[in-house]
């Protein structure tokens, strides 16, 4: 092996500090892996272990351990992902409340925890207790009045700026890969791309720490997307402990798919939804074995989070609701309207956000990332504080909007005019006319809706960890709640209209505005991300109500149709295109009638293909060829006259093999002949020792003929995960099609800029 000579057997603990040697089998940064080779290496390894297991008991035990290592990895990923999610939830809970006040008895308690044991809470002032004081009470001993308000306002802004500045500094100094959502890059990595350091330990640490800071600072972003990145980092870390996964990039990606499922599972408390999200959105190849293992990892993660119990009531997510009021067929019409709103909002958000991100990428705006974060945080804090619906964290807002109004709610949204003689139990309150509090709440919600729509466009994509599940759900929940209250009041005041007469008698509980909020949230989330099944499953796992599947599906389907009418890409695919990642999407359909000969290189008028011959080139010729070109591989033909194809050799392996040969083998000089055949060629006497490179030659490269339709070629690239494909005619080599050529061709056909595909 390559690195055998350097291991002197000292084997210290400190060996992990040394630089790792490049192996023949590893890949370079920003390159694509060879899926077929990884699969065949795994099969070889498995066959070797199976053969050896018959030799002795120890080998048999080793083979069992190898088989079980997959499950051990899943268990560890679930444990660590659940733990980190619990830490993030608890820390966010505390730090969000830190902006407004502090608990005097124990500074590590949030507002709710501080007032937990207090006896001074009254029915009207459920949140107040003497142990938790706002900053104005603490500093100037006043709790009401203009000066107290201004002091609280000022300190809120200061804390928000402090958290955001700390977050962006940590990202910039320690782990620049920790910014953004992470899902577009993880999609690309799972399709076979290598980004070294993206799933590393420092990225994991910094992403966890800064995620807490940015969510607490009140910015309009969520933590679900970054949690997927955190879980994938955990997956990468644990898979590097077992050689079955650390040496095989294809197997490692199976582990990463399962880790992504665990990430979504702890974010939403939805294990099944997590697995479906991984299947639908994130993964590229998803064999059935991965399905079962992902479910296991998601369950372990959910169970770990539940045992840490961050929300004090054995629930996994802050906005778990559990009502079972029925819905009526006639309500499908407002649900579909909410779906249309979701689709339109999704389109608007994607277009505006991509335009803003493109501006950040190309103009001077991109040179001031820290300043940008500070300015956006300041604007968000200044506008968010006066409106009580934006002052609190977005998760609490969604929780309040999802909840139905019982007799015990004290918020303004539930300020209905009660009948004083009413003695109905808590969950069967009939529809009531709205009091003045509800009207105030409605226009405050409308302002909050407009604000959130605008500010999220500028927030997503900044150089801090940012997700967009929670802001989308908040926008949808606000719109849905407003529509729900409108329908409720319409049904109450006009209960004699034809629509309402059948299903809504006076004195009955017809309309549940909380359900409209849920449907709106699902519609907006679907409009932005274009999720289908996973969205519905996540939403009904969030609510625990199987009876609401039909409204959720109606809204999700409508929003996807409306959004697809304006543009085919979801937000993650749009970001992949913006960054130019070489991602060949399985969802795109290629319907043009071009042939392989239209796409292959070299085109007419270009330099002929750089090839290696089977036994007539010297070492010096090969080195010159490598130095002058930057292709990733070279086809090997019989000779320059008869261009019959023998195989394909990778650039990296050629370099390493030649370097090795020069260092170790005797007699190999620049004039030595390089041969790829089994036996050395006939050489005149006194010629230098030839160099045999057959072991690095891939003898079965994929070929298509020049008249193969591009539709088939694209399908082959997708299904097999190829990096390049050779084009032949009657056995003679004509040209080569690489993945980048395919992507450029598809971009050209879709009238996009083919030069935006940047990575090789």
């Amino acid at each position, binding site marked *: 092996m390559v690195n055998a000579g350097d291991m002197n057997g*000292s*084997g210290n603990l400190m060996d992990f500090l040394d630089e790792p040697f490049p192996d023949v089998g590893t890949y370079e940064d920003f390159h694509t892996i060879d899926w077929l080779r990884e699969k065949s290496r795994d099969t070889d390894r498995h066959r070797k272990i199976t053969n050896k297991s018959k030799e002795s008991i120890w080998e048999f035990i080793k083979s069992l351990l190898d088989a079980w290592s997959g499950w051990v990895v899943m268990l560890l990923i679930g444990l660590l992902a659940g733990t980190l999610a619990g830490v993030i939830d608890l820390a966010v809970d505390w730090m969000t409340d830190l902006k407004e006040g502090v608990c005097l008895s124990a500074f590590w308690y949030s507002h709710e925890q501080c007032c937990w044991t207090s006896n001074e809470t009254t029915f009207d002032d459920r949140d107040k207790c003497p142990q938790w004081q706002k900053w104005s009470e603490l500093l100037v001993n006043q709790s009401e009045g203009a000066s107290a308000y201004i002091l609280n306002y000022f300190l809120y802004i200061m804390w928000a700026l402090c958290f955001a500045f700390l977050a962006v500094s940590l990202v910039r*100094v320690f782990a620049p*890969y920790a910014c953004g959502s992470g899902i577009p890059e993880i999609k690309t990595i799972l399709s076979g791309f290598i980004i070294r350091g993206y799933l590393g330990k420092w990225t994991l640490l910094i992403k966890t*720490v800064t995620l807490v800071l940015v969510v607490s600072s009140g910015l309009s972003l969520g933590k679900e997307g970054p949690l997927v990145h955190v879980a994938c980092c955990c997956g990468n870390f644990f898979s590097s402990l077992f050689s079955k996964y650390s040496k095989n990039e294809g197997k490692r990606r199976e582990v990463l798919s399962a880790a992504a499922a665990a990430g979504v599972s702890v974010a939403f408390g939805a294990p099944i939804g997590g697995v479906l999200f991984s299947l639908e959105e994130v993964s590229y190849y998803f064999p059935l074995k991965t399905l079962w293992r992902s479910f296991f990892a998601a369950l372990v993660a959910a169970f770990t989070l539940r045992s840490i119990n961050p929300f004090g009531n054995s629930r996994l997510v802050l906005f778990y609701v559990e009502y079972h009021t029925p819905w009526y067929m006639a309500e499908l019409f407002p649900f579909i309207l909410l779906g249309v709103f979701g689709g339109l909002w999704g389109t608007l958000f994607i277009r505006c956000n991509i335009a803003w991100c493109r501006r950040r*990428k190309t103009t001077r705006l991109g040179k001031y990332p820290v300043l940008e974060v500070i300015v956006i945080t300041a604007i968000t804090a200044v506008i968010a504080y006066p409106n009580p619906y934006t002052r609190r964290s977005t998760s609490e807002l969604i929780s309040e909007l999802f909840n139905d109004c019982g007799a015990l709610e004290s918020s303004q949204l539930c300020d209905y005019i009660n009948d004083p003689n009413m003695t109905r*139990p808590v969950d069967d309150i009939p529809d009531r006319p709205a009091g003045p509090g509800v009207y105030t709440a409605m226009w405050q919600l409308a302002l909050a809706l407009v604000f959130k729509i605008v500010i999220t466009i500028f927030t997503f994509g900044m150089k801090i960890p940012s997700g967009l599940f929670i802001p989308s759900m908040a926008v949808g929940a606000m719109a849905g709640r407003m529509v729900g209250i409108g329908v409720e009041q319409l049904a109450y005041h006009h209960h004699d209209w034809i629509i309402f007469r059948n299903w809504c008698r006076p004195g009955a509980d017809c309309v549940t505005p909380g359900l409209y909020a849920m449907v709106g949230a699902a519609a907006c989330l679907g409009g932005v991300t274009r999720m289908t099944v996973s969205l519905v499953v996540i939403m009904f796992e969030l609510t625990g109500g199987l009876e609401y599947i039909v409204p959720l599906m109606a809204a999700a389907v409508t929003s996807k149709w409306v959004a697809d009418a304006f543009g085919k890409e979801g937000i993650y695919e749009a970001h992949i295109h913006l960054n130019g990642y070489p991602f060949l999407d399985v969802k795109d359909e290629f319907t043009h009638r071009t042939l392989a000969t239209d796409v292959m290189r070299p085109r007419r008028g270009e330099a002929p293909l750089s090839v290696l011959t089977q036994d007539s080139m010297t070492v010096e010729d090969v*080195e010159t060829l490598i*130095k002058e070109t930057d292709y990733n591989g070279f086809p090997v033909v019989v000779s320059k006259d008869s261009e019959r194809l023998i195989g394909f050799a990778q650039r990296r392996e050629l370099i390493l093999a030649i370097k090795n040969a020069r260092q170790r083998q005797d007699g190999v000089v620049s004039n030595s002949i390089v041969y790829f055949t089994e036996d050395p060629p006939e050489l005149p006497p006194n010629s230098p020792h030839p160099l045999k490179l057959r072991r690095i030659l891939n003898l079965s490269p994929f070929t298509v003929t020049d008249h193969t339709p591009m539709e088939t070629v694209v399908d082959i690239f997708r299904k097999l995960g190829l990096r390049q494909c050779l084009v032949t005619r009657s056995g003679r080599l004509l040209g080569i099609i690489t993945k980048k050529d395919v992507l450029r061709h598809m971009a050209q056909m879709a009238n996009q800029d083919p030069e935006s595909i940047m990575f090789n």
Partner: protein
Amino acid sequence: FPQASMMFAQCTRKCGSSVLLITLLCCILPPPAQASKSSEDIRCKCICPPYRNISGHIYNKNVSQKDCNCLHVVEPMPVPGNDVEAYCLLCECKYEERSTTTIKVIIIIYLSVVGALLLYMAFLVLVDPLIRKPDAYTQPLHNEEENEDARSLAAAPTPSGARANTVLERVEGAQQRWKRQVQEQRKTVFDRHKMLS
């Protein structure tokens, strides 16, 4: 036996960095598992709305989950005996539990991690350039697509021969490598906007 020692060295290389993380995991997981339920940590909370001329009230009591209902928790009962059922129908009782030890441990660990990172960041940004200045070993990173392959073909052998012997020098080397990697990442993300834009 070179194969075994090679495998052992590779294992210790991975194990060394993972020992740290697993230790952290073990520090976090046992506290929630062993948290004994102190009296502060469980409660049954009943919220009763206004009823006739009685104002609304919140009742807290430390009872187990099967006793968490209106009859056990609401004391003293504000209505006479025949009205108790009607009053209790309006009340909503919920059983809640929390673990104060978990919250304390997690918040304090989090704050110490943030503090440590802050200190290290201050060290890297302020103190490190002052120490490094007399050294004059600042490697200008090659920016664009330098032909690294040509360099590796023709150039000097990798510095594997002169391996640093002391632990301090190895830590130095690892830190320098890490700083180079972070600088590359920073260039890719912040300067060239090639990724994560």
